[in-house]
C-alpha cells in the first residue's frame, strides 16, 4: 500500500515538474510572440503615418500643378488677346507705304502700338518690363 502511495507521489511530483517546465517554456514563447506583435504594430503605425504623409504630399503636388496650369492658361489668354490687338492695328493708309522701305532704328513706335505693347507688361511686374 505504501509503495503505491510513494509511486503516486513520485508520479505527481514528476508530472508537476514536467508541467512546470512546459508552462515556463510556453510563457517565454508567449512573451517573445507578444514582443514581436508589438513591434509589428509599431511598424504598421509608422507605415500608416508615412502613407498619410505621402498621400498629403501627392495632394499638394496635384493642387500646385492644377493652380499652375490654371494661372498659365490665364496668362496665355492675356497674351493671345494682346496679340489679337496687335493684329487688328490698322495699316498706314494716309500715304503710300513702300513695302521694302526700312524704318529708322530710332524712329518712334506708333502710339496705338505702344499702348497695346504696354498692356503686355501689366500682369508681368518685374525685371522683364523694367527696361526703358
Amino acid at each position: 500500500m505504501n509503495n503505491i502511495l510513494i509511486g503516486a507521489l513520485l508520479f505527481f511530483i514528476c508530472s508537476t515538474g514536467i508541467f512546470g517546465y512546459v508552462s515556463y517554456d510556453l510563457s517565454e514563447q508567449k512573451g517573445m510572440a507578444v514582443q514581436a506583435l508589438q513591434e509589428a504594430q509599431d511598424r504598421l503605425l509608422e507605415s500608416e503615418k508615412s502613407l498619410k504623409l505621402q498621400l498629403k504630399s501627392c495632394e499638394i503636388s496635384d493642387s500646385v500643378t492644377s493652380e499652375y496650369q490654371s494661372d498659365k492658361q490665364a496668362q496665355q489668354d492675356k497674351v493671345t488677346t494682346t496679340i489679337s490687338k496687335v493684329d487688328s492695328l490698322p495699316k498706314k493708309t494716309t500715304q503710300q507705304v513702300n513695302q521694302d522701305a526700312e524704318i529708322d532704328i530710332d524712329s518712334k513706335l506708333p502710339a496705338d502700338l505702344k499702348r497695346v505693347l504696354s498692356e503686355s507688361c501689366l500682369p508681368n511686374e518685374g525685371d522683364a518690363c523694367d527696361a526703358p
Partner: protein
Amino acid sequence: MLPDSLLQDPCGAIKAGDTVRSLAKGYVKNTGCVFDYKLLLEKQRKWKAEQQELFKDVK
C-alpha cells in the same frame, strides 16, 4: 520629389521677324514667356514650402 509638370519649359523665345508688327508680337510673346517662367518658379517655391512644412517633423 518635384512633379514633372513643374519641371517642363513653359515656352521658348520668339524671333523678331521682319516687320514692326511681327516684332511687336514677338515682344508680347516673349514678355509673356518671362511671366510663364516667373509663374513656374513661384509655383516651385510654393510646392517646396508646403512639402517642407508637411515633412518638418519627419527625421
